[in-house]
């Protein structure tokens, strides 16, 4: 009971922050507070949304995946090559793209979990490998695909949002449910809190950990399909810096980088906040450098606020605790 109400409160706080941001930009710009803005926003975020959802689970077990941007580029390259050069049907291209994501994620998981290499290093390597493969498969060329892939990203008449957006939101709901209500989800939270204790409780934590990396891989593949679909072409440079946006969104949503705590729904709000910030800053005429300064500041601010709220009494942010926390017995 306590847990549920506090979680709802958290969601409410995120909605309020997002609405506040939205209204703030509305006050500075005449044509921001429109249905059109919302619709644009909705169709811009599906890729980041699904990647951030998977990233949430990886951060919860105390891992990290830096390769998602490159894997997204590789997935897009596969879609382009299979559709344009090999004339595969669309569904087969999608399956190929998801498989590539699955393979990359599984390799990340296997190496980091079974060989005990920190996921930071393994995925840093995968970042280079996947990007290199993306260039190799496309010969570093952007491939125009056109209407064959655009179905996902086209707004549905009347509704204003795309199939990709609806799928992404559905996945958020499903993954939140998996996280908070399934045995797998409980294992993830437990592993992120104290993996040694999980092992000594008689739970084999490795399959769950590998599965989390594999799941993020598949979701990144799906993100690649959405991305290709929105652009109508496959670009081997797609997704550069995506890992940072995804981690930022997850962290703004309050998931701990130390593991053990997090929420997929909150990550979705994190995505919304980042996207709104970018769209709004563009609307009020901020230059690209200014946008980056502001976005970066917001990320740091969000984490400070979150640490303040959650860990005053905990030990995870000793500096913050010392600065703001009550003295403990």
């Amino acid at each position, binding site marked *: *009971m*306590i*847990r549920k109400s506090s979680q709802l409160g958290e969601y409410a706080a995120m909605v309020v922050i997002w609405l506040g941001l939205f209204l703030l930009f509305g006050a500075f710009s005449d044509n921001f507070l429109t249905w059109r803005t919302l619709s644009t926003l909705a169709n811009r975020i599906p890729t980041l949304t699904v990647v951030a959802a998977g990233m949430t689970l990886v951060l919860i077990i105390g891992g990290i995946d830096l390769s998602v941007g490159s894997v997204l580029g590789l997935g897009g390259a596969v879609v382009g090559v299979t559709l344009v050069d090999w004339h595969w049907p669309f569904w087969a291209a999608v399956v190929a793209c998801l498989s590539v994501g699955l393979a990359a994620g599984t390799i990340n998981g296997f190496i980091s979990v079974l060989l005990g290499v920190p996921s930071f290093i393994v995925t840093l390597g995968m970042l280079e490998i996947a990007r290199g493969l993306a260039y190799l498969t496309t010969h570093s060329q952007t491939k125009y695909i056109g209407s064959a892939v655009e179905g996902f990203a086209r707004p549905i008449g009347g509704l204003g949002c795309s199939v990709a957006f609806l799928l992404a939101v559905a996945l958020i709901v499903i993954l939140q*449910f998996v996280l908070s*209500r*399934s*045995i797998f989800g*409980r*294992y993830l*939270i*437990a592993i992120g*809190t*104290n993996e*040694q*204790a*999980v*092992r*000594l*409780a*008689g*739970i*084999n934590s490795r399959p769950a950990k590998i599965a989390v990396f594999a799941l993020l891989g598949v979701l990144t593949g799906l993100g690649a399909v959405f991305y290709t679909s929105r652009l109508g072409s496959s670009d081997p440079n797609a997704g550069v810096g995506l890992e940072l946006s995804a981690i930022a969104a997850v962290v703004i949503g309050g998931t701990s980088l130390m593991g*053990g*705590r997090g929420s997929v729904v909150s990550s979705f709000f994190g995505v919304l906040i980042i996207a709104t910030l970018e769209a709004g800053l563009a609307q009020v005429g901020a230059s690209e450098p200014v946008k980056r300064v502001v976005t970066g500041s917001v990320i740091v601010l969000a984490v400070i606020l979150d640490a303040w709220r959650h860990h005053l009494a*905990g030990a995870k942010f000793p500096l913050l605790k010392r600065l703001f926390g*009550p*003295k*403990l*017995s």
Partner: protein
Amino acid sequence: MPSSAPLLQVTGLQKSYSVPVLSDFSFELLPGEVHALVGSNGAGKSTFARILSGLTHSDGGNLQFLGKPYAPHSKREAEHAGIVMVMQELNVIGTLTVAENIFLSRLPRRAGFVRFAQLRKMAREALARVGLEKLDPKTPARQLGVGQQQLVEIAGALAQNCRLLILDEPTAALTDPEIDQLFANIRRLQTEGVGIIYISHRMDEIRRISNRVTVLRDGRRVATHSATDVTPTDLVREMVGHDLPERKGISNRLTNQVAMRVSKLSAGDRVREVSFEVHRGEILGLAGLIGSGRTETLRAIFGADRKDSGEVFLGADKQPIPIRQPSDAVRVGIGMVPEDRKLDGLLLGQSIRINTTLATLSRHVRGGGWLDSRAESRTTDSIGSRLGVRCASSEQPVSELSGGNQQKVVIARWLARNCSVLLFDEPTRGIDVAAKDTIYQLLRDLAAEGKAVVMVSSELTELMALCDRILVMSAGTIAAEFLPGQWSQEKITHAAFSNYLDRVEDGQGAATEDKRSDGVGE
């Protein structure tokens, strides 16, 4: 020995967090006196120590130290005034040398560079004060046993003109010879006029070392006694506010059915061809010095550490159970309560419910495989009330519970699973008398239900009160086996040392083999 003018005079001390922790607390410490503080966890002992050492402020009351008002704002200020606390959890940094650890906050330096020659000289002097004159100050601290690490901390405390030393559960991780060494040091400090506040749960030690005992309950001083004319029973009664239940004699719960048989188990240097069996309904004790392989034996049986050879059989099975990891052991009904509950047992930031059902999640699902949090709460509440876990609700994070209640939560996890063999490693370490009693009763109940219990403990009195049989480990092998009629503290201690003595005579040198077991500072 204690002289007249008090070193420390405390009157009417108040401190509240959300609830009052200290109310109108009065206390007096004379120079050269060892004044013990006893009380259940949460009675306010640690809070008092934290106020004295500058880690927290009091809300009211009067503190006089050396005849002057005393209100430190930080640990540094307290240490400057001459009050130093050696914490329950050691603060030694393993990668630094002994000398660096002692003088970490005040390394002798010139132009920003450490003057190592002077540092070592100072460290040697400091170590000599605690009887460690033979220890090389250049030794990395991680190579020391817990006992020596503790002495290094005390040396650090004394190296800064300490007039009042606070020791919080100093013997929790020490073996008997290490305790003797510690006490010798305490007596030496007494003669130098240092006042010592000694916080402990162990009654026998308090009677041995202290001049006076003050009992705390719910933040109030219940009584102050001269240590020589108070019995442990009196103290316990004052601590809990009522008499503890009668110590029960061991009934006829023993059966002849073997529950688990361990055959020629070897793991690393610490466990060598250990064989024993435990019956249903039996509490089997594993005694021995720290580092004699007791913990390692349990961990190897449970699959927590790799074993080199040996087999574990369940019941009368002819086929050994292949245990490669803890999940294999848990699957066949073996559970283990680890030595370090915070490191190996608990998900500290998570709720009591999540901790309790961790090993039984598949039994708490509803249609479709989703977790049923109401069923989880029911399990948690029913086991929690059986164990007397004191908490606000099953959703409270275990990090907020006292040590005794945290230990009960770890045990609750295995009760939920209804294991047939339970391995307990130091189940009562660092928990208060009332919680200990609950756990003793629980162990008896488990045995009476026909479960097999194997428990490791450093407290011989505890083993002798509970066990149906005691095995004594020494240097990785089982040195002796005792039945209730046969044992005595002397015999068990002698057996615990037996293999070390032999090996020294053989010229192998147990000391290099096992630093943690060779006592302190010879």
